[in-house]
């Protein structure tokens, strides 16, 4: 019964979204406050309906209702509760439901922030947001219904074992909040185009949304990368896989957008470009959804996936990207151009940032879509992997990172490059010293690691330098400097912290060059050494759990002869799907990790084992956490909390009943 109610709630949400799409748009056109007031009310109602549908599906999962096809295909009664819940979005239908839930959530937040968003802009924005909701609700109801009933069966088919992991419980929601969060900046951009009015106030309103979405996307990508690292057992953290690229592209465009809105807010410039970026970022999010959800990546001629779904999402993609670009082409020339500015200035540096990020994003785009296009056009199958991206993406990102501290230090309007460089002498000097020292210590080792660590150090020190020079100069007492630093706007701290986070990640990535690995066949008592770390195979034990059984290799890890503790790596067999998986054994030592991955177990009791030692590897993800924390801190900045003055006074009668 609840399942049918959930299905009905989705249909109701579709109707309400249609209203939210049409009525406010008309209201904004005719300047009718009552019609515009429909937008927030319906946005909240849509959220309530989709939220109910989502709860209904979750309940079906928790109670293991095996009369629902989706539950049968992706759940099992013996599965732990957390995976029953995360299983809701661990499949195609459920993840699309999560998608629209987050879409509706963002709409609702815009609906309740009426103190910060002018009424007209709010109405148009919510209308555009509703259009997206309509499209995806139609998709769910027609091609991807999670509520389909079947004749009840006794037991479910279980969730793909790779997904039975805490990582899955958090990775998709974080990623989706990021992906879908950019729908709001897209909606704001379209609303501004519809209205034909765009200024610094618009940028100030849009910036927190961009920041929020960006922070979540950063976390989501980092979480996904860590999940792949420990769950897939290959020891790598980024494979330039099309699915990963699909999330990286909106992140790059979103990062550019984040910076261009700053220019727009401060200097009333780069307007058209910012609008274009907002459209592009969400278009790339949609493209990512299409690539991952349509099955086009699994295979162009796929059979596991319903081809109708692929074409449906492609239709949505074409409609929204095409529509928004048409709107852009039509209205953008009407926008008043902002001023130009000196190339050497903070805004000039931000343009450089945008230029590099957008170009880097384009290379990822080409590398990801070229093989697909080629296969469709010629039938030739190729693969574009790490070597391509190392050759195209890195040469664009490294100069950007080198320039970052300079841009951060440059003054607005009229900067002085030499003066800026002087302010960074200390940071540059220390980074160079660190690089040279590392080169000397690790002579004969890979050169990449010291150079990369030097770059990361420069980024961190450059960010610190920015805070220090803004609060301390020669002769300032420490107490005064401390008060000054504490009094700096939180956005300044957020910027510094986020940029330092980039440095932390860069150090982590650079240090992977120092990673060592070993491969061996082992029997109980045998040892295997990778660098200064050694493992000994203690014993092999079978174990049986509720929904899988496993063979565990118990290892003793030692470093230069000193025993550090035990490590377990296993081969699991998930009984229901008869699917084997490998669980890597990971021991964190400081910021590095000892990583062991179990291979085939032979009949004579010998095992294959791959052992890695990865120094500083945790910094890769810690840096992403720091970046997101910087974004979050920026979000609490006073400037963003205090709203812009409303443009038009709204009669009290038009306040929507909420």
């Amino acid at each position: 019964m609840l399942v049918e109610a959930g299905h009905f709630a989705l249909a109701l949400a579709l109707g309400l979204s249609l209203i939210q799409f049409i009525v406010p748009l008309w209201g904004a056109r005719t300047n009718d406050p009552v019609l515009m007031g429909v937008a927030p009310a319906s946005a909240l109602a849509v959220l309530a309906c989709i939220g109910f549908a989502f709860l209904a599906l979750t309940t079906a999962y928790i109670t293991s209702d095996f009369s629902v096809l989706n539950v049968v295909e992706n759940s099992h009664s013996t599965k732990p509760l957390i995976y029953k819940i995360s299983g809701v979005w661990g499949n195609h239908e459920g993840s699309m439901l999560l998608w629209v839930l987050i879409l509706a959530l963002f709409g609702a937040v815009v609906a309740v922030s009426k103190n910060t968003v002018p009424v007209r802009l709010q109405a148009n924005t919510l209308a555009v947001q509703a259009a997206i909701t309509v499209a995806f609700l139609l998709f769910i109801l027609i091609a991807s219904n999670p509520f389909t009933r079947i004749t009840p069966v006794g037991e479910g088919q279980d969730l793909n074992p790779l997904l039975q992991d805490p990582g899955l419980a958090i990775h998709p929601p974080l990623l989706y909040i990021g992906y879908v969060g950019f729908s709001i900046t897209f909606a704001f951009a379209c609303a501004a185009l519809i209205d034909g009015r765009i200024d610094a106030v618009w940028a100030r309103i849009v910036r927190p949304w961009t920041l929020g979405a960006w922070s979540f996307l950063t976390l989501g990508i980092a979480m996904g990368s860590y999940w792949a690292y420990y769950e897939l057992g290959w020891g790598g953290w980024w494979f330039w896989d099309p699915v990963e690229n699909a999330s990286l592209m909106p992140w790059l465009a979103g990062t550019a957008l984040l910076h261009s809105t700053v220019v727009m807010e401060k200097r009333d410039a780069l307007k058209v470009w910012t609008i274009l970026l907002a459209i592009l970022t969400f278009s790339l999010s949609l493209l990512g959804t299409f690539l991952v959800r349509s099955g086009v990546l699994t295979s162009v001629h796929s059979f596991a996936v319903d081809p109708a779904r692929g074409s449906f999402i492609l239709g949505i993609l074409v409609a929204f990207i095409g529509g928004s670009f048409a709107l852009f082409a039509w209205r953008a020339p009407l926008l008043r151009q902002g001023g130009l500015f000196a190339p050497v200035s903070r805004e000039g540096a931000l343009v450089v940032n945008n230029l590099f990020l957008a170009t880097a994003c384009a290379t990822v785009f080409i590398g990801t879509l070229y093989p697909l296009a080629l296969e469709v056009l010629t039938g030739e199958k190729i693969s574009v992997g790490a070597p391509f991206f190392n050759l195209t993406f890195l040469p664009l990102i490294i100069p950007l990172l080198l320039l970052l501290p300079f841009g951060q230090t440059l003054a607005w309007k009229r900067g002085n490059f030499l003066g800026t460089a002087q302010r960074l002498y200390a940071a540059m000097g220390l980074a160079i010293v660190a690089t040279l020292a590392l080169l000397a210590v690790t002579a004969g080792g890979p050169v990449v690691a010291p150079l990369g660590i030097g770059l990361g150090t420069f980024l961190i020190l450059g960010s610190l330098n920015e805070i220090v020079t803004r609060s301390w100069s020669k002769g300032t007492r420490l107490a005064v400097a401390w008060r000054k630093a504490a009094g700096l706007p939180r956005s300044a701290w957020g910027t510094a912290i986020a940029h330092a986070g980039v440095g932390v990640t860069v150090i982590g990535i650079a240090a992977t060059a120092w990673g060592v690995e070993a491969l061996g066949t082992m029997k109980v008592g045998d040892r295997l050494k990778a660098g200064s770390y050694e493992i000994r195979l203690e014993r092999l034990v079978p174990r049986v759990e509720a929904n899988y059984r496993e063979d565990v290799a118990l290892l003793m890890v030692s470093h230069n002869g000193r025993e550090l503790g035990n490590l377990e790596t296993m081969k699991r067999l998930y009984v229901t799907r008869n699917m084997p998986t490998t669980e890597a054994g990971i021991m964190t030592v400081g910021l590095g990790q000892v990583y062991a991955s179990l291979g085939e177990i032979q009949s004579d009791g010998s095992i294959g084992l791959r052992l890695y030692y990865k120094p500083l590897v945790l910094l890769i993800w810690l840096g992403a956490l720091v970046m997101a924390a910087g974004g979050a801190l920026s979000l609490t900045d006073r400037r963003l909390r205090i709203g812009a003055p409303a443009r038009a006074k709204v009669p009290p009668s038009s306040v929507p009943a909420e």
Partner: protein
Amino acid sequence: MTRKQRRLTLIGAAGAVLAIALGLVLYAMNDTIVFFNSPADIQAKNVRPGTRFRLGGLVKPGSLQRGESQQISFEVMDAESSIVVRYRGLLPDLFREGQGVVAEGVLENPGVFRADTVLAKHDETYMPREVADALRRQGHWQGEGKASQQAK
């Protein structure tokens, strides 16, 4: 700086970065792209030893041999021919005789392929149509394509 000069600086910088990026992409396209071949393609296309490519096909039943310190060899076949693959490392969980496999590496000589990666993603990606059809005829799909599609 006049307005015109400023605009020219901006356009110049954008042009330069784009030109560099385009150059890099074209260069990388020539150099780093890996083609996909089935065993039959190797003869048909006359692939030279030393060429790096992805090999895809079915693991020939009974061909898997394990040597010292994780040295592994197996044969990859399609409807027409087969080739020996040598690999040192751990095989992915879903590697099985009689099933599809994709390996990346270098052709040592016309009969031997030295793989440095055997793809763990065991799904229909990069599967030549004839192999896919063969797989389907033998009823080997077992819904794995679906599983891998959900995996991310």
